[in-house]
């Protein structure tokens, strides 16, 4: 049901417009003494919210193993085609030999990356993670392409709660079925 809002015609004092101006002036004057909301950026670092999507990085698990198994799902899903993965074999005498693959080279072009986080969502190993770095700059375009070494250096360690690979390793060592 429609509600009829009665519009009062303004009083003479209101029609002079002056009391409103004065009250408005008081509001703005009070604002002068309120704390500033501007972030003084280069001096003050911003407080980043949880789940912030900064630069994508590659991470290792708590044993120092690189999590990436070079399945190339991130490369496939990347909408801006910023990721290039070159898959490589793991040598048979490595302790992680049964994982089959690890990236030989992993490149992310930061000038193409749009920080959408789809690579992170697609990754079955949680190996690629968007972290807090937001000020990405270089003197050249080539300098913005990060290789595997740089990506791991930026990524650091992100421990797994469930160590899939360890379970597989133990099972195979003790001759159990998966």
């Amino acid at each position: 049901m429609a509600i009829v809002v009665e519009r009062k015609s303004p009083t003479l004092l209101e029609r002079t417009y002056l009391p409103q101006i004065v009250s408005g002036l008081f509001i703005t004057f009070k604002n002068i003494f309120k704390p500033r909301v501007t972030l003084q950026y280069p001096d003050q670092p911003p407080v980043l919210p949880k789940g912030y999507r900064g630069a994508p990085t590659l991470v290792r698990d708590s044993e120092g193993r690189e999590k990436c198994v070079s399945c190339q799902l991130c490369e496939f899903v990347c909408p801006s085609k910023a990721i290039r993965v070159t898959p490589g074999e793991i040598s048979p005498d490595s302790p992680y030999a049964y994982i089959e693959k690890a990236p030989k080279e992993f490149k992310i072009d930061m000038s193409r990356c749009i920080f959408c986080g789809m690579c992170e969502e697609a990754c079955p190993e949680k190996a690629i993670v968007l972290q807090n770095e937001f000020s990405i700059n270089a003197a050249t375009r080539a300098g913005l392409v990060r290789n595997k070494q740089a990506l791991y250096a930026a990524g650091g360690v992100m421990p797994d709660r469930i160590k899939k690979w360890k379970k597989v390793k133990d099972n195979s060592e003790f001759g159990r079925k998966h």
Partner: protein
Amino acid sequence: MDAFILNFSNFAILADAAEVAPACPTACEFALNILLKVVFSLVCVVVVMSFAGLSVVAERKVCAYIQGRYGPNRTAIPIVVAIPILGNFLKKNGLMQLVADGLKFLLKEDPLPAHVNKFWYMIAPVMALSPVLIAACVIPFGVYWTDGGVMAPLAVANFDVSLLFALAIGALGVYGAIMAGWSSNSKFPYMGGMRASAQVISYELAMGLSVLSVVLMVGTNANVDSPLSMFEIGKAQSGLWFCITQPVAALIFLIALFAETNRLPFDMAESETDLVSGFHTEYGSFKFGLFFVGEYGHMVVGSSLFITLFLGAWNPFPGFVWPESWGWISSALSLLTFLVKIAAMLFFFIWVRWTLPRFRYDQVMRIGWKAMVPLALLNFVAYLVFVSI
């Protein structure tokens, strides 16, 4: 008619010069007079211009504070910023931004659009700024006492009709906007110029009428021979100020002043929201800078007019004057009082600008003709009746 003949013997500087060089021959004295006049004018120009420049910074800072920001606080001049405390102070308060802004106006390319009327286009910025500086020469910034104990104003020129002079020359400032609007030969500047002229015509009336009642009030005093002199008006406010005795006239003058100086809420000539940038849309570089400084200079002169007319001129409080017995300290204090009042008025201008939205053009006209003019007339007639009773 006597009041309209310039009383040259009142010229403060002439009196001064006569004291400085009594033994000089006439030609030498004349040259000294001219020189002193030039120096005084330059000082006056410097005062007005520096206030205009500082009010640009104040505008940015105050608007920033009102909006919860910091305003300009990063611009730094390499060597100056290294000075221990002063450098940081200047940087934090955006005073180096002032230099940067000025340099920017100077160093940008100065374009001359092909479609403009060249002569008027070039002369318009000069017309916007020069009336301001001319009008500033009659403002009594303070007082001093001659050896005979006669009070005299600290003004470049003090004559009997200085108020009329200031109002007339000050109103000429709008010619800059009109010329710019017309000569730019493009739609938006043209509309801005038209609005500026219409606005000045409508508000000049109310302004003049509100001044009349003050002049009348000064004139009814028996021992004042030239009530149109700004010095006499200032002197008449040694007791109650005219903003207390004439509140309606003060209010009308203040509102008309906002319209005259093209400040928000009467920012018709420049209204960025509908006219791009109004009358100076086609201007760039230093020509725009002249308009910009002219606008703020207009504010300075306008507020000193308001101070002289209604806010007690150089007197610090209603009912208190700087005593003659303090000598030069007193005159320095009177000058300081006036400058502080100008600063306060400039703050008020800025404060209002960042509080109120702009009026629509038809609203401006309606307020001008249907509210301000009748009210000013009524106030004047009421005061006439009051005086005659």
